[in-house]
């Protein structure tokens, strides 16, 4: 009897030691100078970005303690689930990350977010953020989040060597989808088995939205979300046909592949193209590649002149335990230094228009230019265009199409999703 007891005692002691070794702080309602920040940036380049932001935050607010409440997994779905539970139970974090745009609708309708219009006034953000962005952030005259960065989702990342070997000029973007499909054919003929790299459901949705923009145009695409464009229209039919064609050039295992594994296929030289948002930039940087040298980018064929935007943003929940500290956090992320530190690390561009483009690497400069000049539309795959429920329904229909290539079923699924969402 003595031996098991001593083993158990030893294990408990070990446990205490390990647990004590690195005790990280947790949110204490009594301590006014804490801010619990809830994100899904738990590792990789996103964590690097968060760390950079925290550094600026501590510089600007040396008395406030930053508490990291990040939850990884499922491109934020684990985090969103945990967050919804906390909000439901009236135990909100001080601030949480959410995609700016329609994704916030649920929280807004439930009255869980505080109106930040006065915050915008006080910090002069209404002057510094571009009008098209403010338009997309405003719901019924109120603004509920502060964007920390802008990403672009209609970018093709190309491996220049692979293209050159097949006789394609990487610097010249194909004029439209059909021309691009012809190039994909060339790659296949040259022995590249998977000309277009693709990943799991949300990346498929992103590819599909690119095709929608190309076939419907910016206005037609935006109309899909307001009810101005019908889902069972000819444009959507063409888009589905084009999308099906593109799928023929993709890797067969895309269903289970994370976005970075898909981008890796391009880096490994096994694919020529990957349609991805500009967080892919960090992948190419890590590989040590130079822009316009080993890799290049252009807007997805057919979407030239359109900036398919998504933005990470932070909110102020109703009943946040440390409101002042949370507001300090929001000030930091909207400040010039904060946005610069964050975006340099993360590969995105600032929301502020007073950005000095020269500060940023080559790719971001093209993005900044485009954001300033092109028509801005909201991304479907990243919570800007449609609510969580709606995009979830579309995602399921797209996933099904990826499995069975049933175009009629996809169309009816899209129509059903739209009917359900728009009542």
């Amino acid at each position: 009897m003595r031996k098991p007891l001593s083993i158990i005692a030893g294990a408990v002691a070990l446990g205490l030691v390990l647990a004590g070794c690195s005790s990280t702080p947790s949110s204490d309602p009594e301590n006014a100078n804490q801010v619990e920040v809830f994100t899904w940036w738990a590792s990789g380049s996103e964590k690097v970005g968060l760390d950079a932001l925290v550094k600026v935050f501590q510089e600007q607010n040396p008395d406030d303690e930053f508490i990291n409440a990040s939850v990884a997994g499922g491109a934020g779905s684990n985090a969103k689930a945990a967050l919804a539970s906390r909000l439901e139970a009236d135990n909100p974090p001080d601030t949480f990350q959410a995609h700016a745009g329609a994704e916030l609708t649920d929280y807004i309708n439930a009255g869980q977010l505080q109106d930040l219009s006065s915050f915008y006034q006080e910090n002069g953000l209404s002057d510094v953020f571009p009008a098209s962005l403010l338009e997309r952030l405003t719901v019924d005259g109120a603004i509920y989040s502060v964007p920390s960065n802008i990403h672009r989702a209609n970018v093709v990342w190309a491996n220049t060597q692979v293209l050159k070997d097949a006789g394609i000029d990487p610097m010249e973007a194909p004029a439209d989808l059909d021309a691009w499909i012809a190039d994909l054919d060339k790659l296949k003929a040259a022995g590249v088995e998977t000309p277009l790299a693709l990943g799991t459901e949300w990346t498929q949705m992103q590819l599909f939205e690119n095709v929608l923009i190309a076939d419907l145009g910016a206005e037609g695409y935006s109309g899909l979300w307001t009810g101005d464009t019908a889902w069972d229209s000819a444009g959507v039919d063409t888009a589905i046909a084009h999308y099906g064609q593109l799928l023929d050039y993709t890797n067969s295992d895309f269903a289970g592949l994370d976005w970075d594994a898909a981008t890796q296929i391009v880096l490994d030289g096994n694919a020529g193209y990957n349609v991805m948002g500009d967080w892919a930039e960090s992948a190419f940087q890590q590989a040590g590649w130079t822009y316009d040298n080993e890799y290049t980018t252009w807007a997805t064929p057919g979407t030239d002149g359109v900036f398919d935007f998504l933005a990470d943003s932070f909110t102020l929940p109703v009943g946040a335990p440390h409101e002042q500290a949370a507001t300090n956090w929001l000030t930091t992320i909207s400040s010039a230094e904060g946005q610069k530190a964050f975006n340099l690390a993360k590969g995105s561009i600032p929301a502020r228009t007073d950005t000095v483009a020269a500060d940023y690497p080559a790719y971001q400069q093209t993005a900044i230019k485009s954001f300033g000049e092109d028509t801005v539309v909201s991304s479907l795959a990243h919570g800007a265009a449609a609510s969580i429920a709606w995009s979830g329904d579309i995602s399921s229909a797209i996933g099904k199409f990826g499995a069975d290539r049933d175009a009629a079923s996809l169309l009816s699924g899209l129509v059903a999703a739209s009917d359900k969402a728009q009542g």
Partner: protein
Amino acid sequence: MKKGYKNWGPPLLLVSPTIIVIGIFVYGLIGANVAVSFSNRNSLVPATEFVGLDNYFALFAEERFIHSLQNLGVFTVFFIAGTMIFGFLWAWMLDKGVTAEGVFRSVFLFPMAISFVASGVVWRWLLNSAEGDRASGLNRIFENLGLGFLQNSWWNEPGWGMAAIALPAIWQLAGYVMALFLAGFRGIPEELREAARMDGATEWKLYRYVIFPQLSPVALSALIIVGHMSLKVFDLIMAITKSIYQTEVPATYLWVALTANDYAKSATIATILLLFVAVLIVPYLVYTARAERKQR
């Protein structure tokens, strides 16, 4: 036995905390869940109204839900078959006493100790559906061993793909079934076997008329436990493929609905799952209770 509260008072008191706790945390919360499934709470907005069984009808009319049920069916069949067959096979092979029996037993049993999250890390890689040059995992070893024709797209196959997901589940739980059967085998008195052999029974007849009947309670036990685990499968699928169409089962669909803040739908799916489990468990519980009363 004396009657009176002095006799049954103490035991009832001893078990009453458990009764109360289970009453609240199991039945109470289930009730709360069922109440939500009768509402139309499809978002974060709390205000709702009573809609009766509408959610249930709507769900069964959905192609997506039916598809998740089909996936669950395929998974369950392969999972149960795999664990029962391998569990029985290993127990049968080890029963007669082999050298290093302890080693084999430990190895077959240990996957049960691993969490689905950890197991998902490696099985995700093993079941990767890329073939040929980009193959990794099982497809790669088939290639290396010259068995290239065995390469396939594993769970990426609409229809039978869920059988591939059953593989890690079988890997983790066949050992448990083996332990149950081994206990069953070892519990058969040697005299019974000797007597049958004395009567001139062949090995096959011995198994058919003596051993199998003795094992059937164990087999039933194993079947029920494995069956109900199969209905709840969630962690494993999330770890291997996350929630995608090809591997969607009711439990993951429930999760998707929850992340979309559709409380009514997730509550409805949960109740349906509960009913499936109940259909499996309640007859079994009744059967065991009756069998025991006979013994008493």
